[in-house]
């Protein structure tokens, strides 16, 4: 069992490297060698596609966890800067500080004003620390609440991007009320009079995720995951074996398809061949079109209808058996 995305995609990463080298050689070689060089590139490309086909045709729950965590996957700001114009990042919770794990601000989406919020991961060590691995602290959720309230005030639709392993569990977060901040953010989302769309683009990590995902429409990328607990944590509790993450991932059924089948999300967005990280352009287009379509369907709903649609949708979540109470 591979423990990381890099380990799992090793065969692919190796061939990517070989391909890169072949392309460099092709650039430098003489015209007589050109045909051979191009054949070589074509060979590698075909080989790569075959490997992708094999690996991605049978992505299990654990492999989805690894792909959802891929370091080359587009992050919230990648979508925001491509799909939105006039983005002005706003900061601070006006109470304690500014959290870099949650970003947000005003923007235009296809010419229409919106509020956008997202959990942001870092791509290198420094950046990851700056973003606290996308694990938001209370001030992050309170910044989101501030932005949600502003959206309500100015009648702006909300788009949120969900991508977090979990909310920050540290002592500081605890003392500033991380639980209250998450709960208050969920509550605020239910009180909104404007349309909201949440897109799970990578990791939908438990309370940290639902804190900005109680939306009228919840969309989920094909290889992203959404879970009540990280699989490693689940394995540690159940079998005292964090290494049994794969077993736990299977038991938790944390895939987009499973969430859709159980009516917990509204739509699964297909990822390009070989995953979102292999083709940013296509996946960004898919996400943009889905947001547009969702906002369009919500456009006709009145504020009361929007609140009611949200309530009814989440109210129906849960599977219980109800027998007549025994006398």
């Amino acid at each position, binding site marked *: 069992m591979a423990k990381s995305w890099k380990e799992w995609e090793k065969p692919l990463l190796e061939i990517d490297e070989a391909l890169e080298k072949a392309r460099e050689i092709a650039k430098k070689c003489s015209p007589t060698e050109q045909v051979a060089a191009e054949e070589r590139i074509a060979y590698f490309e075909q080989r790569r596609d075959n490997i992708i086909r094999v690996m991605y045709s049978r992505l299990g729950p654990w492999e989805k966890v690894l792909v959802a965590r891929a370091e080359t996957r587009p992050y919230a700001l990648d979508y925001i800067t491509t799909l939105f114009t006039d983005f002005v990042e706003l900061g601070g919770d006006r109470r304690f500080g500014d959290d870099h794990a949650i970003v947000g601000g005003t923007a235009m989406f296809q010419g229409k004003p919106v509020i956008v919020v997202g959990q942001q991961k870092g791509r290198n060590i420094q950046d990851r620390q700056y973003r606290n691995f996308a694990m938001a602290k209370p001030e992050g959720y309170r910044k989101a609440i501030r932005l949600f309230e502003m959206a309500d005030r100015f009648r702006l639709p909300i788009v949120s991007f969900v991508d977090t392993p979990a909310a920050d569990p540290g002592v500081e977060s*605890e003392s500033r009320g991380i639980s209250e901040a998450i709960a208050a953010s969920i509550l605020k989302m239910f009180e909104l009079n404007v349309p909201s769309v949440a897109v799970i683009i990578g990791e939908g990590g438990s309370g940290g995720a639902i804190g900005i995902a109680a939306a009228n429409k919840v969309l989920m990328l094909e290889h992203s995951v959404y879970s009540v607990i990280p699989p490693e944590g689940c394995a540690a509790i159940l079998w005292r074996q964090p290494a049994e993450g794969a077993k736990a991932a299977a038991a938790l059924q944390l895939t987009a398809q499973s969430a859709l089948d159980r009516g917990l999300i509204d739509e699964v967005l297909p990822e390009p061949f070989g995953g979102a990280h292999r083709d940013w352009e296509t996946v960004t287009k898919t996400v943009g079109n889905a947001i547009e379509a969702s906002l369009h369907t919500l456009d006709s709903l009145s504020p009361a209808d929007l609140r009611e649609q949200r309530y009814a949708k989440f109210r129906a979540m849960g599977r219980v058996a109800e027998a007549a109470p025994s006398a």
Partner: protein
Amino acid sequence: MLGKKKATGLDGSFVQCLGCKKTLFRREFEENLFVCQMCGHHHRLSWRQRAEITFDEGSFSEADAGLRSVDTLEFPEYREKLESAIAKTGINDSVVSGRATLDGVPVSTAIADFSFMGGSMGSVAGEKITRTLERAATDRIPAIVFCASGGARMQEGLLSLMQMAKTTAAVAKCREAGAPYIAVFTDPTMAGVLASYASVADVILAEPKSLVGFAGARVAAQAQVMKVPDDFQKAEFALRSGMIDKVVERRAMRSTLSSLVRVLIGGSR
């Protein structure tokens, strides 16, 4: 019946306190509402004991008793765990909901029982909390919820996470209707329960030294180089941090709730 944290019975007339390990007269211990007379340790209560010491005598009537969990994921050992919890506790899931009166004031209430799978919240607990808050909203009566939970029930996967959203949405209904909602944190009130309906009550009370926290203490400590305070994730820490209104001894809980409820409904009548 004291759940897992049972004050261990020596023989019929004595019990040993789980806090100070001293030997206590069972009768005095029970008269003191299962609080140790020596060290003040508040032992965990079953839902029934809680109902008995809180509401007007005989006023509690259970609703939603027919609700049962469904093993939709066919999660390893979930069915067995449910069956043994039902057999052990005599209740169908970790929350018992219903109606009662408190000094004559009708209330909608839910009481979590930690001895049922650690009070964990799956679909049934989520549904009962939601119905409790909805009943309060519809009838414009106070909701009183006693929390005791390790968090969301992982055996129901994402369904359990969604109970956080569902129950919190019901709090919005209470606010809209002007129905007061009081949460009482008892030992322990953690994770998915704390980060949803529990933390957005109008008033939050807690029993002394109850564990109140988001992540397990070990996870929290690991994530930090900072020194962890001695009372970290205890009710008193939550009080100091401004996260709850008051730490209330069990003996004073009933009268405190009664005072709160009479004032909070005052404006709406």
